[in-house]
């Protein structure tokens, strides 16, 4: 049985529906990330879990116990807020001790556990300081210590890195992942940053317009997006309108002005209209047409632009009405210049088809 089970959540603010049929579950010690753009309902879902928002419909169960009607203070859920929400009129020690005091833990025990928590986040010397005296990264670590010191059943992280600058963000990501692995608390994290989600989460639930579009491990989501939205939200993609047919026992997608490609099946695609996606890093460029290879798709085009970006090169290839982005980590075969003809090829399994939507939805 799953540790946390969220079933059929529905919620609306006035006439604006923010959650529709949101269901997911996580196992003990698992980290799930709700990923999506702002306004997709991920924060509302977190508020429902915390007990700050009462959903119109649906249920939340932790360890088989239903949380409906239970006030936030009874849920034993640790929350790390986006702005950390450290109490400004209390010292770091008092901040971390707050949850234990509320639980009536004995004084000596509070002292012991607070200092343990502060050592866990490597800030025992900050105990007497006020939150304003700490840097952003330190505040985040204290917020984490405060959330886990109560030994919560569930940990909620709300956009944990959004208030940090770019350098610190990478550092804290590694640090937080270490802490989460050591503690192995069931965690639900909310973010709009796909990289953060992929780094921290065991599984990702991609949300869009109040619905969960796909749940899966980071690599499943990346390699097999269930919808155009998921494919575009996670990583870069070249997207083409395609029509499907079966030929010689294989599924063939034809894209006007580009060619015909053999593609793997996707049960989500119904009918014969679909969209075809190829990620820029899966495409190989070469100046000489390679021999048709089993299991590879190819297309032809002209080099339009080349940008050297250090760890990779970005190429823009024009093929009929299409512009295709290609990333190469090494130097492509031959010497390619703008205006040169070029062959693009990519593996069949990296050719993705998703249900047709308006291309720029």
């Amino acid at each position, binding site marked *: 049985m799953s540790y946390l089970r969220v079933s059929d959540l529905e919620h609306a603010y006035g006439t604006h529906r923010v959650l529709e049929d949101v269901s997911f579950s996580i196992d003990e010690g698992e980290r799930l990330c709700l990923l999506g753009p702002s306004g997709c309902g991920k924060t509302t879902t977190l508020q429902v879990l915390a007990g*700050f928002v009462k959903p119109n419909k649906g249920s939340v169960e932790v360890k088989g116990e239903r949380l409906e009607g239970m*006030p936030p*203070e009874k849920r034993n859920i640790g929350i790390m807020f986006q702005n950390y929400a450290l*109490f400004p009129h209390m010292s770091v*020690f*008092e901040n971390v001790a*707050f*949850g234990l005091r*509320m639980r009536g833990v004995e004084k000596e025990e509070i002292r012991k556990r607070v200092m343990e928590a502060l050592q866990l986040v490597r800030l025992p010397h900050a105990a*007497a300081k006020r939150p304003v005296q700490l840097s952003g990264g330190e505040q985040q670590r204290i917020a984490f210590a405060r959330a886990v010191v109560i030994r919560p059943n569930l940990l909620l992280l709300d956009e944990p890195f959004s208030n940090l600058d770019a350098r610190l963000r990478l550092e804290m990501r590694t640090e937080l992942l270490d802490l989460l692995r050591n503690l192995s608390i069931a965690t639900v994290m909310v973010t709009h940053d796909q990289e953060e989600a992929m780094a921290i989460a065991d599984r990702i639930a991609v949300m869009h317009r109040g619905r969960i579009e796909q749940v899966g491990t980071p690599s499943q989501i990346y390699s097999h997006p269930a919808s155009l939205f998921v494919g575009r939200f996670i990583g870069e993609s070249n997207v083409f309108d395609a029509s499907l047919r079966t030929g010689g026992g294989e599924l063939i997608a034809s894209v006007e002005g580009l060619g015909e490609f053999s593609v793997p099946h996707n049960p989500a695609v119904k009918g014969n209209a679909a969209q075809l996606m190829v990620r820029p890093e899966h495409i190989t460029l070469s100046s000489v047409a390679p021999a048709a290879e089993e299991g590879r798709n190819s297309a032809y085009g002209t080099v339009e632009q080349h940008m050297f970006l250090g760890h990779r090169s970005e190429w823009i290839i024009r093929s009929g009405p299409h512009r295709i982005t290609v990333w190469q980590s090494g130097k492509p075969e031959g010497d390619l210049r703008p205006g040169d003809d070029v062959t693009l090829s990519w593996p069949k399994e990296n050719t993705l088809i998703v249900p047709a939507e308006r291309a720029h939805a």
Partner: protein
Amino acid sequence: MHNRISARGWLLLLLPSLAVLGLLYVGPVINLVRISFAHHDPQVGVVANYHLTNYLELIRDDFYLEVLWRTIRLSVLTTLFSALLGYPIAVYITRATGWRQTLMFIILLMPLVTSVTVMSYGWLILLGRNGILNTIFLWLSLIDRPQQLMYNETAIVVGLVHVLVVFMVISIAASLQSIDQSWVRAARSLGASSSIAFRTITLPLSLPGLRTGALLVFVLSMSAYATPTLLGGTRYKFLSYLVYQQAISLYNWPRGAAMAVLLLIATTALMALASAYGQFRTIRSRARLGSIAAEPSTRIVRSAA
């Protein structure tokens, strides 16, 4: 960006307000203090012959001391009731939106923009012998004959709270508005019920506003003239009325000035006392906090050694 203003620039910017303050405030106050030591001659008026007689007479005057004590006592009560009444209103105003908030502000500001004459009629209608309250109480048989509801100390406090509570509400509301709701939510998630979260988070963080409000209400009520004169009648006078009487009716400026200076001293002393007490408490709580945090960390150092 280069937009720093030099010290001289600042001085230049401050000059107009400094001039106005000096001309209309500091100068007259110094003059007031000077006159308070001067001699009063019924024929000439102020005579530049300085002595302490005005003050000594006042300190020995039981009537004056009684009025001073009443002024302080009723001002403290006014401040207290304004805080008790104003806090819930401030909470309501910070949570209310749109027309409810506007309406509440209009109700609160009404007494400030109403003329004293209109207000006095209002109180008469409400509290007079044949007023609304007496009529209602008679009709309900709570009393058997009309009671005197005006011209006593209770009426003064009720009137002052009515006029001054808005200052309390505005400063508490400003303080409450700066309290991040995520702090309250954090407290809730850590196990605090909504009432405990209020006591541990909202209330302590709104104390600066409460302090400012108390200061404003206290000072304004110590120097109030119209409301206490109107509602206290002939028996229950406030100090500002005595000052007025001395200076305007009896032309005894030195005595009036001495009263005003004593009022100023009393007000300042009480405020200083309150703020010193506040500071003492913060220092004490900081010290206590420091000891909590210091002990375990020294222990760690010891165990590490």
